[in-house]
């Protein structure tokens, strides 16, 4: 048997995806969990990760069973029923999402029946099995999305709206910058003439928007792998096609290509897409032109060699931008989210496609091994795009650090995002401010 121990954790567990429910406006999860589960996931994924804030339905506010010995020994059905009923009485939500934890899943509570009683009464409640031992919050996210579709959105046989797209992209909260990123993705897709179900975050219309999922012309999976199983599920359920774009676009080169690809797939007016791209590039390149003065002649030096330690999707997006638009040199690439085995070859291909001379992506979850990999890298990175966990090794090898991934405990993030046109400019600001700040 091989050790699978993990220190310096870089994801939550399946129940941590209760924050995907929190990310849908007007939705409140109900934690069918022990007393500490919701607090742990919140403190890690939401608070000490960019201090994002849980807003309406999360944090310490969501209902939680707080299982005791009684629920372990005698089962928790009774208590869950009571808590759901109390939640309907005390809290206002368009939808409650019951997420089960280890205790409920091991003991074998019949959550389906309990939730079914409320559904039969027409109460807006769904459930997903998200026991922590079943996988991480990426897996939990897909389970919750499917649960809402199956149990709340329901069947649909009406007409399809070809100009409407459902977007499945970054994992809310896990990705520290998801709020800004999703807003930008929505903005640029609207720019080429689509209407967008962004589904999570401030740009989402909440549960009402989710109810229009089956009407959309197609699903866009904008991630190295997350969301593919949701799109497959929607294809089976509604006969809805999907487009998989594994590279999240950062910067004008990738974003322009992305928009043209989507426009072609969705058969939107190509002229409109080109006009939008032109307009965006005009602004973008004026900023880049001005930045180029710093980039060309800041004679105290700016770093070139970089290491990236992040979820595969963000690692690819950043590596791609850094390598192909900024001309930086990736020397170490580590993907940390434990992507399912069947997607790993695809992810390797995604990185190989960035440039022939970048290193092969490594899949590592344990913080000790990651640190060793960085420390012993034959080509030493001058800047690390990583997490709070990399601060120590960055100091040790005198590299700069830009926290782009969970946990980013030294970042306060509101609307800042790093994708698309506007995000790329923010990322440039962040990279080089970090570099200069670390100097004398």
């Amino acid at each position: 048997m091989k050790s699978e121990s993990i220190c310096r954790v870089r994801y939550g567990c399946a129940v941590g995806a209760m924050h995907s429910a929190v990310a849908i406006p007007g939705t409140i999860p109900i934690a069918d969990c022990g007393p500490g589960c919701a607090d742990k996931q919140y403190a890690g994924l939401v608070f000490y990760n960019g201090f994002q804030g849980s807003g309406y339905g999360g944090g310490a506010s969501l209902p939680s069973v707080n299982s005791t010995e009684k629920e372990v020994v005698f089962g928790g059905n009774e208590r869950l029923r009571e808590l759901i009923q109390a939640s309907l009485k005390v809290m206002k939500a368009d939808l409650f999402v019951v997420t089960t934890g280890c205790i409920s899943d091991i003991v074998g509570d019949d959550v389906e029946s309990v939730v079914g009683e409320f559904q039969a009464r027409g109460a807006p409640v769904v459930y997903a099995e998200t026991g922590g031992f079943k996988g991480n919050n990426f897996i939990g996210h897909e389970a919750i999305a499917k649960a809402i579709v199956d149990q709340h959105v329901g069947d649909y046989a009406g007409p399809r709206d070809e100009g409407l797209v459902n977007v499945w992209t970054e994992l809310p909260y896990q990705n520290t910058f998801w709020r800004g990123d999703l807003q930008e993705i929505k903005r640029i897709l609207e720019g080429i003439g689509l209407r967008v179900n962004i589904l999570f975050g401030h740009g989402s219309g909440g549960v009402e928007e989710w109810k229009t999922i089956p009407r959309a012309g197609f699903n866009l999976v904008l991630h190295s792998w997350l969301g593919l199983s949701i799109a497959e599920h929607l294809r089976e359920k509604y006969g809805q096609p999907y487009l998989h774009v594994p590279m999240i676009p950062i910067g004008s080169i990738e974003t322009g290509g992305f928009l043209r690809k989507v426009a072609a797939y969705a058969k939107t007016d190509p002229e409109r897409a080109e006009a939008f791209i032109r307009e965006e590039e005009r602004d973008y390149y004026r900023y880049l032109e001005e930045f180029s003065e710093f980039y060309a002649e800041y004679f105290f030096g700016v770093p070139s060699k970089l290491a990236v330690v992040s979820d595969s999707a963000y690692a690819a997006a950043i590596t791609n931008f850094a390598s192909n638009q900024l001309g930086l040199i990736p020397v170490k690439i580590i993907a940390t989210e434990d992507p399912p085995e069947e997607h790993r070859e695809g992810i390797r291909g995604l990185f190989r496609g960035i440039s022939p001379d970048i290193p092969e992506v490594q899949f590592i979850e344990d913080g000790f091994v990651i640190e060793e990999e960085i420390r012993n890298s034959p080509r030493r990175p001058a800047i690390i795009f990583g997490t709070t966990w990399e601060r120590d090794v960055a100091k040790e090898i005198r590299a700069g650090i830009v926290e782009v991934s969970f946990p980013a405990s030294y970042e306060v993030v509101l609307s800042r995002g790093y994708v698309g046109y506007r995000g790329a400019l923010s990322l440039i600001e962040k990279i080089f401010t970090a570099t200069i700040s670390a100097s004398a």
Partner: protein
Amino acid sequence: MARINLDNSAAESREQRLGTIVYWDGTASELSELSGYSKKRCGDGRGCPLKERKGPFTQPSVCSEQMVECQAGNVREAVLIQHAPIGCSASQIIYNMIFRIGLESRGHKVENIKIASTNLTESDMVFGGLEKLRLTIEDVWEHYRPKAIFVGTSCATGIIGDDVDSVAEEYSGKLGIPVVPLSCEGFRSKHWSTGFDQSQHGILKHIVKKNPEKRQEDLVNVINLWGSDVFAPMLKNLNLRVNYVVDMATVDELAQMSEAAATVAFCNTLGTYLSEGLEQHFGVPQVRAPQPYGIRGTDEWLRELARVTHREELAEEFIAREHARIGPELERLRERLSGLQGLIATGSAYAHGLIEVLRELGIAVNGSIVFHHDPVYDSGDPRQDTLAHLVDNYGDVGDFVVSIRQPFQFLISLQNHNPDFILIRHNGLAPLASRLGIPAAPLGDEHLAIGYDGPVNLGNLILEILERGKFCKDLSRHVTHQYTDWWASQTDPGVLAKNPGLIWED
């Protein structure tokens, strides 16, 4: 007074040992009376059983395992293993920040926290996780060569019944270091402070030197968390040195606790088990006195510490000097603060201390939320009855709510009192206050309000925080609340506990 039994592999939970409750509401004097601590109504050193008022609606609490992370996980030169599915490790993130900031504030080298998860998955739930535990112990030994390894359990391993004690014993022998099992399944106790007790039990049983060859007559164990170094400068006036435990201590500093002349704690909630264990098993006296909050409490606390360590004269000189120094400053602060109303929402004994400080500053405290209530502490000594000390010396608190960090109840308390500010320590409640237009002073540095400088520090912090009312008031005009109109119109935060049938009414 209950015997702390170090033959057992784990501490008894708070509710079994002390009769702890997490839901109640009434007046502070009533709770003090019912607890019967000072009055010894229910036998020597035993509190009286209290009736808990738990309702059907509950919001997330915090578990014992988290407190093990923030105690055993914060010991330098040691490693904590979480024998658990990966989700329990999400809190590594918060305790890492706490650890890093604590190291910085104490002048130690800043580094990441050392906690490893055995990362249990579905098949381990079926076949058991002990092999993964063995491999993880070998990993951390290989990677860090720690001076001690703690192994905390989880809800999952508690239910599947992994025999962690045996594996810990096996590796204690193999590695020649203490491998300390800590039983901290979240579901086993309704209050997280049981996790303090479990960590301290493991330290008492496996790490503290059994037969110290010497006594350090000038060494005082100070049980605290990661607060700034306030005790050392204070105790220096009594020619005493400080041994801060448990957070940020080295394994050797934990081991030498049995050599100390006395033990004190910044808060009885945290320190009750360890202080008593050190006294019962190692003859280190605990300072049986009020906590060092406010001028009165600090005086009494110092005098008792001086008596135990035979430094009465030094103490009296110090007390006189400090009164002269702090008096005028306090007077100035009182002028600016009197007439304000504050509301406290923190852990139990800590809240008792903070209310005393606020009242010394002339601030009204009509309501308070504590996250639990221990009817008695482990010593059973009435001089440590912090609630009675508050009520007897500073008067009653008319609206005293025991509520395990429940924002829905806090909403009602905030509406009832509409305070000028709140004091908090744990996460979870201040966000709600902000949305209602009320600023919060978070006491991340738990030592801020301690000793003679405490009231001054706290008073100045409050003056700063009051300004943030501008931010909160503006915000409050632009937020939607997540509670139903029915709930928001309640005036009794405990109404659902008293009448649970309400949830079924339309």
